[in-house]
């Protein structure tokens, strides 16, 4: 990674350019699938290390992010895993990986005890347009994954000016 987000921080651009840039992003929107299937997970070295050769399946877990984020500083994120679960197949953890953030391991949520509803909502920072991957780990070792693609018009890596 070079200087974080330098490519997408439009701070230095003239306001008109910035308008054009966001307009172009909007125009492209219908052509870009919002939610990629997990079998086409992006290559994220941190995620590859986490998976350590294991293959996650693309079912039951759903990562929801807006297709277009005006401001990368705070982007609503929701990840849920469909049950039913048993104590032996419950969700123990969910990891979030970022394709383009300077820190690829965004978050890990741990569920040390059984709960029948697995749903976590938060707000994330995104340094650039990218794919985000959620990997859920079950108690029996199974892995479920879901990816979502977000277009970011103002990067979240710089100050708010």
């Amino acid at each position, binding site marked *: 990674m070079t200087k*974080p987000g330098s490519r997408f921080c439009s701070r230095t651009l003239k306001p008109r350019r910035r308008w054009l840039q966001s307009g172009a992003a909007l125009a492209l929107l219908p052509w870009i699938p919002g939610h990629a299937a997990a079998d086409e997970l992006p290559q994220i070295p941190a995620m590859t290390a986490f998976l350590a050769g294991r293959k996650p399946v693309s079912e039951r877990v759903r990562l929801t992010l807006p297709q277009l984020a005006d401001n990368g*500083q*705070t*982007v609503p994120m929701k990840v849920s895993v469909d049950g039913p679960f048993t104590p032996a197949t419950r969700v123990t953890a969910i990891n*979030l990986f*970022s394709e383009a*953030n*300077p*820190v690829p*391991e*965004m*978050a*890990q*949520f*741990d*569920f*040390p*005890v*059984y*709960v*029948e*509803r*697995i*749903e*976590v*909502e*938060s*707000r*994330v*920072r*995104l340094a650039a347009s990218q794919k985000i991957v959620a990997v859920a780990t079950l108690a029996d070792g199974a892995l479920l994954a879901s990816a979502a693609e977000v277009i970011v018009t103002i990067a*979240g*890596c*710089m*100050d708010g000016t």
Partner: protein
Amino acid sequence: MPDARITVPASVPRGKPFEVRVIVRHPMETGYRTDESGKSIPRNVIRSLTCRYNGEVVFSARLSSGIAANPYLRFFVTAKESGQLAFEWVDDAGARGTDGATLTVA
């Protein structure tokens, strides 16, 4: 020390999952910003946040600079007994914060 706002339902049925929402006031400094004089502002994010329900850890999160300022989390916990939900978090500067909410199980 930053403080938090915790929201739980007024009353929850036993054995059912209930929604917990928490917002912690914290800048989640990424370490990539600079101040007016051009000096870089050191990274300071909440690294971990733990939720205990009557003493037992029921949810925890490891966070990074990829989580927005004033981190917000919403998750579910299974209702067992009336009691306390206690949150504890720690940031890069080593500052610890705690807050809690009282829960009534019907």
